């Protein structure tokens, strides 16, 4: 059987007729051609497929299409603002690029989605050990390339921008936070 599933995707309404058992991951990639979301493991372990479902990070490989009806999904494509011609990357995307927090890029969409949520939820504000907090909140995002250090640097820089550099410094790549750079 197929089911008409209507849900919000990156601020627009999408309707697809799919098996309710189809994974949200496959609906995004195959039906909506949003191929930014990656499959790493298909087992909920790696976090490459992370999207926001009603504002919360989930593994889209473990969500059935039927469960998305009437809900709102944000994928990595939905993080940037601006236009297609002139995209304005989200602060975490800018910092991941500037600081070498992405190498092969398979983990990056999931990390960007989680990190954007982390920034917007204010989870780091006032944290006694922000680096430890970032590592805890990104514990479900496995990266085989970067060794995580530069990812954590990027997320800290995006979530806790220091003064003026928050305005113009994103992307300069020259700022560290005392981590292993």
């Amino acid at each position, binding site marked *: 059987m197929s089911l008409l599933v209507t849900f919000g995707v990156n601020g627009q309404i999408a309707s697809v007729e799919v*098996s309710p058992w189809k994974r949200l991951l496959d609906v995004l990639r195959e039906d909506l051609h949003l191929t930014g979301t990656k499959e790493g493991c298909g087992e*909920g372990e790696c976090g490459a497929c992370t999207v926001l479902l009603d504002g919360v990070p989930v593994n889209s490989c473990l969500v*059935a299409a039927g469960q998305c009806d009437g809900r709102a999904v944000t994928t990595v494509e939905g993080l940037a603002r601006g236009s297609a011609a002139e995209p304005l990357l989200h602060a975490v995307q800018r910092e991941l690029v500037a600081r070498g927090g992405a190498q092969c890029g398979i983990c990056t969409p999931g990390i960007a989605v989680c990190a954007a949520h982390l920034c917007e939820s204010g989870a780091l504000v006032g944290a006694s050990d922000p680096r430890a907090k970032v590592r805890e909140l990104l514990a479900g995002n496995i990266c085989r390339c970067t060794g995580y250090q530069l990812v954590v640097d990027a997320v800290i820089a995006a979530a806790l921008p220091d003064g003026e550099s928050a305005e113009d410094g994103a992307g300069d790549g020259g700022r560290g936070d005392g981590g292993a750079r």
Partner: protein
Amino acid sequence: MTGYLRPTSLADAVAARAAHPDWLVLAGGTDLMVNAPHRPVPAGIVDLWGCAELRGIARDGETLRLGAGTTWLDVVQSALVAAHAPILGAAAREIGAPQIQARGTIGGNVATSSPVGDSLPVLLALDATLGLASPRGRRVVPYRDFATGYRTTSLDADELIAAVVVPVPDAATRLSWRKVGTRAAQSISKVMAAAAIHVEDGVIAWARFGLGAVAARPIRAAAAEAAAAGRPADEATARAVADALAGEIRPITDVRSAADYRLEVAQALLVRFVLNAGRS
């Protein structure tokens, strides 16, 4: 696949289950949807995710009532859990990773009944009960009678888990929990243990020890509990508890750990719990 139902009340969920006994009951999907493309397509799905009646944590007299659809994230964020059942919150925080905690439910963990289900030793230590519902009515079963063998339970074919009910421990009951795995997140436990130890004037009146990953199902360590009861919460008792435990569990060696290691760690955890109960 012939159908997909999204009941919004427990009554509708029970009716859907009864009408379609061969369909899959789906909650957060963090057990059922692992490798979904390589699994047989279900005959149909009864999707409990949107059933608000099943989700939420409330104080009910001297108990905490957690709807079966309550997620681990709900548990982590609950002030009631933090105040009255902190070891359940501690276990929830170590289940998978944030993405798993956002979807995985307590009912799913109980129904899957894996020997490494992290909440299960906690439910044993807290002496939780389960509220079950079927077209024949409701029944309450003590959690300690629920897991019957390797991933088997006493849930009837037409039943759903409606709620997990945890008695609120009194101030003299010391609670402990520890999961031992390769890392804090995304790791399946090598051993985990939970304890509720009732101490009066330095003497253990009673103790409940729940253990996971040391048997085919989550178990209470009855001999270890007996070794603790009526004894002071000290080194000698802790040693007696560890010895009693060695006599009652036979952990296995598998890809995640070795039998000797599991026994030694389980003993060390109970020793620590007993000594901590004596200190606090």
